[in-house]
């Protein structure tokens, strides 16, 4: 009898642990809402499309160079046959030769390994690298000798440099300021000398890619399928272009439907429309942020000329840079892509139909 009482007491005393170990996990799983990822939504919408634009060109993959597995590349610059990739988390710069596919840690050459702190964007101009990082704008030469550091006090996400070394930069909005400029003009001393355009929306207009021609500044919002073209001299918006895609309208609806559900989980659902932009000769190329590679070619008046696809290539979760070059009669697209979680790949795509090359 005594042992039965002790047994009953022990069972009751142990009940909380039993519930915790057996029941709680199930309850937690039951409460968890599995929200679709942006890529899943895009794939599902793409599967419904049967019609492909008549003016489309199939690209072939020339090469794929996996590198820096587990790391977080954020931008790259092409210089001759080398691509220099800025890695954000570890502050590295990888030098990748696109001919022989050799990968080197260029940042190991830098005078001090502490020289880069969370870089966000990289360019090569006037025989030097220009890198924006957490500390400001850093320049260094091909040997890795640091030439200068100027503090800008602005979190630049993407930039380009004009012939007179004026920097056109998109940066995250400073909360302490009332200005919501889309592009800042920064001189080589790090001083903001002017601003161009305005971020109309706090959410969708926060980040934009920039590309320059001799007379124009072109920007592509990351989270809105719109291109702005500004005159470099007058700094006035001369054209606003809406880039269409069969899934974009449906994507908008998904945003509206899922916004609240994401918010409840403390997340923001802000789909990406563009992943890069590049003016090349008299053409403008836009890399769409889609799981399959898709590039739109426009003339500088904003007329769409054709689209390029690489439908048989691997799916892309995200992109970290985009460039265009001509090699003989071939046009090549260089794309930084994440083909899986933390699996960066530098890929080259091309087509060789010289009648369709266009541009002068």
């Amino acid at each position, binding site marked *: 009898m005594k042992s039965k009482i002790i047994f009953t007491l022990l069972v009751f005393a142990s009940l909380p*642990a039993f519930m*915790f170990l057996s029941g709680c996990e199930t309850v937690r799983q039951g409460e968890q809402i599995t929200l679709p990822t942006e890529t899943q939504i895009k794939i599902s919408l793409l599967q419904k499309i049967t019609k492909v634009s008549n003016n489309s060109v199939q690209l072939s993959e020339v090469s794929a160079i996996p590198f820096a597995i587990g790391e977080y590349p954020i931008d790259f610059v092409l210089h001759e046959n080398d691509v220099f990739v800025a890695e954000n988390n570890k502050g590295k710069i990888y030098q990748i030769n696109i001919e022989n596919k050799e990968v080197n840690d260029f940042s190991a050459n830098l005078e001090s390994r502490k020289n880069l702190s969370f870089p966000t964007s990289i360019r090569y101009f006037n025989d030097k690298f220009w890198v924006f990082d*957490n*500390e400001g704008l850093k320049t260094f030469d091909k040997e890795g000798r640091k030439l200068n550091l100027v503090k800008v*006090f602005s979190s630049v996400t993407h930039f380009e440099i004009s012939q007179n070394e004026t920097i056109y930069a998109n940066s995250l909005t*400073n909360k*302490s300021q009332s*200005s919501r400029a889309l592009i800042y003009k920064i001189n080589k001393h*790090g001083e*903001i000398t002017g601003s161009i355009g305005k971020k109309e929306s706090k959410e969708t207009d926060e980040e934009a890619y920039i590309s320059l021609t001799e007379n124009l500044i072109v920007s592509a919002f990351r989270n809105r399928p719109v291109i702005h073209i500004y005159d470099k001299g007058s700094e006035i918006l001369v054209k606003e272009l809406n880039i269409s895609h069969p899934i974009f309208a449906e994507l908008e609806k998904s945003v509206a439907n899922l916004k609240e559900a994401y918010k409840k989980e403390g997340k923001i659902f802000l789909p990406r429309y563009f992943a890069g932009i590049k003016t090349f000769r008299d053409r403008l190329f836009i890399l769409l942020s889609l799981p399959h590679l898709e590039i739109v070619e426009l003339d500088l008046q904003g007329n769409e000329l054709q689209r390029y696809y690489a439908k048989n290539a691997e799916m892309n979760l995200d992109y970290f840079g985009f460039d265009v070059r001509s090699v003989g009669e071939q046009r090549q697209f260089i794309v930084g892509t994440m083909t899986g979680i933390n699996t960066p790949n530098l890929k080259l795509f091309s087509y060789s139909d010289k009648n369709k090359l266009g541009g002068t």
Partner: protein
Amino acid sequence: MAHKMLFVIVLLLANLALLSVVSFNYQKQQNLNKQQDLFVGDFTSKAPIADFLNGIKGENANRALTFGVISPSSKNCFIDSVVGHLKEREKLGEKILMFLPSSYTEQDLSNFKKNLNVDFELQPMNEALSSAWFEIFNEKKISGVVVSIKNGKVKID
């Protein structure tokens, strides 16, 4: 009976496991809270900062003063939030100062003022004072502080 005893032992072990998980998380939370708490005493333990605070207290005995100190490695977003906070306090009529690391060049100071649209006074710190602040920032794993002085009392915001 043997089965019943085995069942009880399993449940007892489960209880012990639960207890250790709960107590580990509680300890972790306590440590986190501890790290976030900042007291004036943390800073005045360093002689250069104690002297500096006494000096600035004396100079501003009859008015409210708020000042910010940042580390040379402060991220842009942190600097932005300190500047935003100071701008808000400036609107309340307080005297505002910002002390910048001794490693900042004249150009950096000028860019700080212009690019962040700052009207309040900026003062570069000397080497010894800079080092004293940054030692504490490193110890506390923070990027800077905002300090208020009101009626002769010093408060870390």
